[in-house]
């Protein structure tokens, strides 16, 4: 905006200088009008722009004024001039500006109202303003006036060439052009050059300008670019009044003024004033206008603070505070004690090791001062790795109970306190071909009977392992089980081979002729009973539950006296404690799988018309007329007198393999093919009191010690026996103490079968196991 009028103006001036003679006035007039209007236009915006400048000028001015003593109070009270003051000052400035010529348009309007001139035609026919003579109101008696002083100002005198006058004096009277002599006179004048003649005319007076010698000299010096004053030496030798040299006699003895070392209060005030202004935002730092403009534009852009209204959230429950680092040690110091500095070997070793394997990430270094410590070279790398760690391996809070696992274990007595129990194998009974299927120690604790897959029953001397008797019951079927009749009044062994149960009296050192006879009588008693015709009549055409017969001379000579044939292969024989009854289980026998045999009557009965599941094993209660039948999943307890179901025990096993009852009659242990050993308290619950898993393979047999020792054992297919201490308290309220005390290893596993059967000595803490490796072992 601004550049345009300037250009026009310049153009006008050019035109003016070009056509000076022709339309000088018209141009001038036009020029003036233009200028005026332009000035007006110019002025208004410039007023705004210059406002700040003028203000600052004024404030500067006011500050100058404030320096004067009188204003000290005001300054102290209010260092920064208030807005009112500032306004007043700026008004003053405006008034001041009015006085400037050619700025304010006001006088123009007045001029038009009462014009004091008349327009006449000049010689060239142009308009000419003839002003009225200004009558000065006062009489000028200025005696000092040295003639008229031309008041035309700084305009070339040539403007007046066409006029008889050359300007106006202070009273507006024309100063007439001094009379010019003719050329001769002029020549004469030149010949007789008065002193100081220059040939120039004084523009103010029109008289010949005479210059004195001094003036001429001055002009000459100016023309030559010299310093006008002749006596002035622009390059005097410097006199170093104040030098670094300590003068013995200083120029001034005055003590150093306080201002040299005291910070100026005034300066401080000024600075503070500026600081406050900056703080309050009244003084903005300088910025180039383009930047300022850009900022203003940016200011206008609407920017949203997305998180403006966000409440500070409670810390995340998964927030994990960073682990606390140990405080820095001496080795981390920039100037550690010498002993922390690595030796040469240490340094080499450190450098040799892989960065990941290093114990420390840095080597202690010694610097004389902190500023000599270099920047941490691996900072960026470390930050990056840290970020990678956080990204790839975020820390996760693990909910972990801080409990010592050992404290959760029940307080069990140490096995050493629970002695005696069997610990090592002491006798190995070798002789059976193939698996030893069953073992039993006779009630006196002297003889051991075993039955094996080879179809033989053998009797051994328990301590020495000497085989004293053997009989082959069957050439095809294995002897699944051998059980001694539990009383001492007869020496009778029951063994099963296939569908037959054989009852025999093995010739043994303990069998005196009397005992032998007694045993034979016990076995033979039923024959008389049968022949007496008291056998319950079986339905015609229906096979009797069991056929009692003599096994034949060959076996009878060997001592096998009775054979009972049932409907399917017998796997389990269990004697009643009195020795008159025994129960057999043939798991494949369907309805007739469980049979109870009465020895004295040679009678076989099938107590259950229907069984829930396959019968696995049976056991008589040691004291009451109760009978436990284990099917695959449950153990059922029947009352034999009332002929009713008393209880169903659910061990929770998938396939029960074996069952035994404590001599007290209230506790039951159940072994299962799914590797569990379950202890039941019959009074307490139908569910197991304790479940034990000590074997990686199926449990085949479980057995309580019947001679008063608090022991029981299981036999597993992994070839081991586990001996337990199982104390049944006299007090009904206490729970039994069950402690595993010993694992007996020794049997070899053959075809996935380990230990098959187990029996305890009637008095001692000795047990006998039957293994698939063809041996029976005595452990003590």
């Amino acid at each position: 905006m601004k550049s345009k009028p300037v250009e026009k103006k310049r153009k006008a001036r050019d035109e003016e200088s070009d056509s000076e003679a022709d339309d000088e006035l018209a141009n001038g007039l036009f020029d003036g009008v233009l200028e005026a209007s332009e000035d007006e236009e110019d002025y208004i915006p410039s007023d705004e722009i210059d406002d700040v400048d003028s203000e600052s000028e004024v404030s500067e001015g006011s500050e100058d004024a404030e320096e004067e003593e009188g204003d000290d109070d005001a300054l102290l009270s209010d260092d920064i001039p208030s807005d009112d003051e500032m306004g007043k000052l700026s008004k003053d400035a405006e008034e001041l500006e009015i006085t400037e010529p050619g700025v304010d348009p006001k006088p123009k309007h007045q001029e038009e109202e009462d014009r004091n001139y008349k327009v006449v035609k000049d010689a060239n026919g142009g308009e000419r303003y003839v002003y009225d003579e200004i009558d000065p109101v006062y009489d000028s008696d200025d005696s000092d006036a040295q003639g008229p002083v031309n008041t035309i100002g700084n305009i070339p005198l040539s403007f007046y060439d066409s006029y008889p006058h050359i300007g106006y004096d202070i009273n507006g009277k024309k100063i007439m052009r001094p009379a010019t002599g003719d050329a001769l006179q002029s020549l004469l004048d030149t010949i007789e050059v008065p002193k100081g003649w220059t040939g120039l005319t004084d523009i103010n007076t029109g008289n010949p300008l005479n210059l004195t010698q001094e003036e001429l000299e001055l002009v000459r010096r100016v023309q030559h670019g010299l310093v006008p004053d002749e006596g002035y030496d622009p390059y005097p030798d410097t006199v170093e009044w104040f030098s670094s040299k300590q003068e013995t006699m200083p120029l001034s003895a005055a003590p150093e003024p306080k201002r040299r070392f005291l910070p100026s209060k005034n300066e401080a005030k000024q600075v503070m004033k500026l600081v406050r202004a900056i703080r309050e935002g009244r003084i903005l730092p300088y910025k180039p206008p383009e930047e300022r403009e850009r900022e203003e534009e940016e200011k206008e852009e609407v920017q949203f603070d997305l998180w403006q209204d966000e409440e500070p959230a409670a810390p995340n429950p998964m927030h994990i505070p960073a682990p606390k680092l140990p405080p820095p040690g001496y080795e981390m110091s920039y100037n550690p004690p010498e002993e922390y500095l690595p030796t040469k070997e240490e340094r080499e070793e450190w450098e040799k090791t892989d960065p990941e394997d290093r114990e420390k990430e840095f080597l202690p270094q010694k610097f004389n001062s902190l500023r000599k410590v270099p920047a941490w070279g691996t900072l960026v790398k470390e930050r990056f790795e840290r970020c990678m760690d956080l990204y790839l391996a975020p820390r996760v809070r693990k909910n972990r109970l801080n409990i010592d696992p050992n404290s959760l274990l029940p307080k069990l007595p140490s096995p050493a306190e629970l002695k005696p129990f069997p610990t090592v194998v002491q006798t190995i009974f070798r002789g059976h071909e193939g698996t030893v299927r069953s073992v039993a120690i006779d009630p006196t604790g002297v003889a051991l009977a075993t039955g094996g897959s080879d179809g033989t029953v053998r009797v051994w001397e328990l301590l020495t392992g000497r085989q004293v008797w053997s009989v082959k019951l069957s050439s095809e079927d294995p002897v699944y089980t051998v059980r001694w009749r539990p009383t001492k009044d007869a020496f009778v062994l029951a063994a099963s081979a296939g569908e037959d149960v054989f009852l025999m009296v093995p010739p043994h050192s303990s069998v005196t002729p009397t005992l032998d006879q007694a045993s034979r009588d016990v076995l033979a008693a039923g024959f008389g009973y049968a022949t007496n015709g008291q056998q319950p009549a079986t339905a015609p055409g229906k096979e009797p539950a069991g056929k009692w017969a003599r096994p034949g001379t060959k076996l009878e000579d060997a001592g096998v006296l009775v054979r009972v044939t049932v409907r399917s292969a017998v796997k389990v024989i269990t004697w009643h404690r009195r020795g008159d009854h025994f129960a057999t289980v043939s798991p494949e026998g369907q309805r007739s799988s469980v049979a109870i045999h009465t020895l004295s009557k040679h009678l076989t009965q099938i107590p259950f018309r229907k069984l829930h599941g396959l019968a696995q094993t049976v056991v008589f209660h040691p004291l009451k007329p109760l009978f436990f039948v284990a099917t695959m999943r449950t153990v059922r307890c029947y009352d034999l007198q009332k002929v009713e179901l008393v209880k169903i025990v659910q061990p929770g096993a998938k396939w029960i393999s074996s069952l035994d009852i404590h001599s007290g009659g209230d506790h039951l242990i159940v072994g299962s093919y799914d590797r569990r050993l379950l202890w039941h308290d019959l009074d307490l619950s139908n569910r197991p009191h304790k479940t034990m898993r000590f074997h990686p393979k199926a449990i085949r047999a479980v057995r309580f010690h019947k001679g008063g020792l608090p022991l029981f054992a299981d036999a597993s297919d992994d070839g081991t026996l586990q001996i337990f201490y199982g104390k049944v308290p006299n007090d009904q309220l206490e729970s039994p103490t069950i402690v595993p005390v010993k694992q007996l290893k020794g049997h070899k596993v053959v075809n996935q079968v380990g230990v098959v059967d187990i029996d305890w000595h009637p008095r001692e803490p000795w047990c006998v196991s039957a293994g698939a490796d063809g041996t029976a072992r005595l452990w003590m």
Partner: protein
Amino acid sequence: MDEPMNDAPGAQVKVTFTTNEADLQLPEEKRQLLVPADIRRYGLSRILNSDLMLDSGSIPFDFLVNGSFLRSSLEDYLNSEGLSLETNLTLQYVRSLIPPVFEASFEHDDWVSSVDALTATSPAGRWSGENFSRGQERILSASYDGLLRIWNTSGEVLVTAPSASHGGHSASIKAAKFISSTQIASTGMDRSVRVWKYTDPGASGQAELKPTLELYGHRASVDSLEVHGPSKRILTASADGSVALWSASKSSSPEADASLLPNAHTSKRRKVASSVTTPQRGPLFLMQIHNAPATAAVFDPRDHTVGYSVSQDHTVKTLDLTTGSVVANLTLSHSLLSLCAIPRSNGAPLLAVGTSARHITLVDPRASAATTSVMTLRGHTNKVVALAANPENEYSLVSGSHDGTCRIWDLRSVRPASGGESEGGVGGNVSEPVYVFERESRQGKKKSVAGEGAKVFGVVWDRELGILSGGEDKKVQVNRGRDVVRE
């Protein structure tokens, strides 16, 4: 200042010799001696035997230091115990036990359950007195095949007892003993005790073994038999829990219980057609005193009217054999399987009891004894089923076990038991075997589990023949220390 001296080759140790043997006492002033530190048992023995000391000729000595035998040089012993060479060592010197060396083994057809020796110094030889002639040393073995065999010392069977059909045992024999040079008692699983008349072949004649008496009374296998020659008494222990005293003479024996005789109830099938009829008699006393199989019974070595019996019911009973009553009862904590009485000069014998818990307990049977369990001997790995005292002294014994070893123990070598180690609880002493010897037949074979095939069933220690042991390897094995038997 001692260090250089210690390292010097001539370092010396101050020792004090002591002994409990009355005939080998040193004079007071000779008991302390400076000996070289690197001296061993042999050197010390030489010193003691030298003219200046005992002047005893050449008795091999063993030295007990703090209850254990010195088996290395003195220096090594001190080093191993962490003692300085300055220590004054007290060495108790005892007559040495010479390591038993295998001499011979006699083959059998079946397991050997029991052995006995007949020599001039054996009990039977002593009881025979004049009847026993030198050079007539015999070894008696009882076997599981039901036969008795009598061997001479060169390993020849002189005579075998008749089989069951000729008046012999109808089942395995478990024990047999010489009563005198002409009489033998045996017993076994046929529940009978048999007395045999043995006729020694002498120079050229035929040896003979004739059954003279069958004694019935026990109702189960008879596992142990002890004899007293002068009174011709036999003491047996049976698996039915009874202990019986028998007389070896027909005239002094009562009639047998007819129901126990083998042909009492036998049907025709079981009748044994015996070609020889032997008198059948019963026991003097049959004491049904144990609740479990009685495993051993012995006479008191001084007094044959006192007997001791042990049983699997954990008890040791002192028996009065004149009345057949139990005098004292002692209960231990394990099944007891074997017993021998070690005579003591100062009163009642010490009973060594072998247990099923693999150790030997020494029991003082006197009721007045403060501690019943004197000492526990540990080392066997299986049941201890045979025990025999050293006939020469009262402080050593040999044990046979089902683990296939015989072990010789010296009761002087003891140390106090740490907690729970001894049989009788706190305060007992324990000891380790001095010598262990295995079955010669198992030599070089792998040590079997549970002593399979090597079990020792019977052992006897004879002054002249050494240690005889029979076992599952069907052999009688003779082991003898070179100088154990002194002429």
